[in-house]
């Protein structure tokens, strides 16, 4: 290894000498010659894969960090790293790149350069990173995508089925409405796979109910204030609404209804914002019938566990579809699936609940990344 290193160093310096020779030429030539020298001197072949040894180097590459969901996702990841078994098995790091594909791509190549064992990724683009992810996979790095998935071959995924999610929400709503009435659909960020899949899931249900009419379909951008604003804008032109189907920002939609005096609120199928679930237990003088399903922030921890198990040779290299964690106005429980003293924008499913919970985390982990007492057991579905 050392031999290789010094050779690399020599060639690197060689490149610089080339540039010195060319120093009297124009800056362009100098710059490119230097880069070229650097390039030719470097290692260009794929190194032989080394078996991973503990502690495993696992990195979380996150894109956008500007909303509560991502913060919780990253916080539970940080908390998990400080809990056993991860504390002794894993040396974890995390990076945010914002929504810039090129920044995330650069960070990924830096991770490859760092020779990490596994990369967990919430991607800025489903396709934009394929080139670099392909390189990571071909170097034997375990790459697991969650939330915003990628299409690169060889990349594993941890996710809930967004199609099923949209479909389940719609099916519940159709049942509440007895198969007839007016529905509004508040969609997500256009151009993303999640948005498309959830809408497709819903549309597959509406197709079976000819008496359900989707009277309006507009984006809420998965953001409560945007959803509230857009809802307030379209509401006056809408007839009586018998059901709300919402991908995100559900509490905002309900607040717009209240402001417009459209009460009592219709049955609502939405994401797992704390504000939405508060309405299920009674909030702002309203109590609603509702169903709440989301992509849980703890997917980062599930991905971490999947990476750890694969690296330890205890689990096959395969993707995981998490079962939907469904909460309705009948099953909602204070302190477990709704938190009245947390803000409306808080995501309640930082932890799974119930007897078959995949993972159980304390609220401190989600709020500040502090570890919970005890060890952290993640129950991956049987291989």
């Amino acid at each position: 290894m050392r031999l290789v290193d010094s050779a690399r160093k020599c060639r690197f310096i060689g490149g610089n000498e080339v540039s010195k020779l060319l120093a009297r030429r124009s800056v362009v030539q100098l710059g490119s010659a230097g880069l070229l020298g650097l390039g030719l001197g470097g290692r260009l072949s794929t190194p032989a894969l080394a078996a991973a040894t503990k502690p495993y180097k696992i990195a979380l590459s996150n894109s956008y960090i500007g909303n509560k969901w991502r913060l919780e996702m990253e916080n539970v990841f940080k908390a998990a790293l400080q809990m056993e078994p991860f504390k002794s098995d894993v040396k974890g790091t995390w990076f945010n790149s914002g929504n810039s594909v090129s920044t995330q791509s650069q960070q990924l190549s830096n991770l490859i350069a760092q020779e990490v064992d596994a990369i967990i990724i919430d991607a800025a683009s489903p396709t934009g990173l394929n080139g670099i992810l392909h390189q990571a996979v071909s170097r034997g790095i375990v790459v697991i995508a969650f939330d915003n998935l990628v299409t690169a071959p060889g990349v594993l995924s941890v996710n809930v089925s967004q199609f099923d999610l949209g479909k389940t929400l719609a099916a519940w709503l159709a049942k509440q409405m007895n198969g007839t009435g007016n529905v509004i659909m508040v969609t997500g960020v256009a151009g993303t796979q999640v948005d498309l899949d959830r809408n497709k899931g819903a549309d597959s249900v509406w197709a079976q109910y000819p008496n359900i009419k989707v009277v309006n379909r507009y984006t809420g951008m998965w953001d409560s204030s945007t959803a509230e604003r857009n809802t307030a804008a379209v509401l006056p032109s809408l007839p009586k609404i018998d059901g709300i189907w919402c991908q995100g920002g559900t509490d905002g939609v309900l607040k717009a209804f209240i402001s417009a005096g459209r009460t009592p609120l219709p049955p609502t199928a939405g994401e797992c914002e704390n504000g939405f679930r508060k309405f299920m237990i009674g909030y702002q003088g309203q109590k609603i019938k509702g169903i709440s399903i989301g992509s849980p922030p703890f997917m980062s921890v599930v991905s971490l566990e999947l990476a750890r198990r694969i690296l330890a040779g205890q689990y096959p290299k395969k993707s995981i579809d998490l079962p939907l964690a469904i909460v309705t106005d009948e099953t909602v429980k204070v302190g477990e699936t709704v938190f009245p003293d947390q803000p409306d924008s808080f995501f309640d499913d930082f932890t799974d609940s119930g007897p078959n919970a995949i993972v159980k985390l304390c609220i401190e982990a989600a709020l500040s990344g502090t570890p919970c007492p005890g060890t952290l057991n993640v129950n991956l579905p049987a291989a």
Partner: protein
Amino acid sequence: MPKLSSRPPCVIELPPEPRAVSDNRRPRWVHRLAQEAGLFLAATMLGIAVILYCVVFLIAQRHLPGGFELTSTVNSTLPLVLAAVAQTLVVLTRGIDLSVGGVIDLTNGLAAITLDGSAWGHAGQPGTGSIGTMILGSLLVLAVGGVCGLINGLLVTLGRLQPILVTLATLSIFQGIAIRVLPQPGGAVPQGYTNLLANPNWPTSVLWLVALAVMWWMFRRTRFGVGVYAIGNDAAGAAAIGVPVASVRILAYVLGGVCSGAAGLFLAATATAGDATAGNTYTLTSIVAAVLGGVSLFGGRGSGIGAIFGAFVSSMIVNILFFAHIDPLYQSFYEGVFLIAAVVLVGGIGHLLRRRY
């Protein structure tokens, strides 16, 4: 000649100035430095950034960056490089192009469905286009970029509208068309195409980079290139000496659009697929790269080569922060600090240089 006043002529004949004037002329390089101060500072800044990167890399990894690092850095920076050059072309005319991101969205989406011929029902597997479809697809993508630029240029020049308003509007329009072209991320770029443009294992992208720099060098030595600079210096002055201001300005936008189109192509090539929203961030980062590269937002000063350096400086900043283990939450903060420091440096040192000489 009127001979009327009793007052003596005030202007008296003087002997000619001694001819030894050339002695106190400054050497050629001083003038070059004054004219291209931004470029030289950007080069210096890039040098410092590369050294800093090597140092933090060496500390973190116990060896110097090698071929993989070079190749992946150039591959992932090339779209930004092209976007920065596109931005520079417009900024030099004292404009600004906010639609760069939209054009990249559109062309990137288009590339994903044309390079393998799937847009016109090519029979083969997705992602296995022939040489013909690749060439045709590339030309189409570049042409679409040029048309986007033409729209901007016509609106700015003939509509006499402010570039910032025009391109803000066209940004949204191009983004909208992009989503129509490629409603969901996907498509496939033939492997051969990726290998040609942004080969992960061999620095082909470095060759493209050199080609781009050479093209800029040539551009600067055309009447059109001089015209672009002249407009940015003083459009009225340029018109007074016969520069065809309107057509040069339109052409600058067109060429900028073509460069943005090329950025879309390279983005598709590195990603091996298309995403009609992946270009959005390039609007801002292209401006940042141009500014880091010493291009004056007031027009008329700067160089595309400087913008290339600027693009690499901004990607070096990302790398340096990465290997320096800066808490990711503070990354954008530090990026901002670096940017301000760099801009102050360019401005401040440039100012000092001019005063010294």
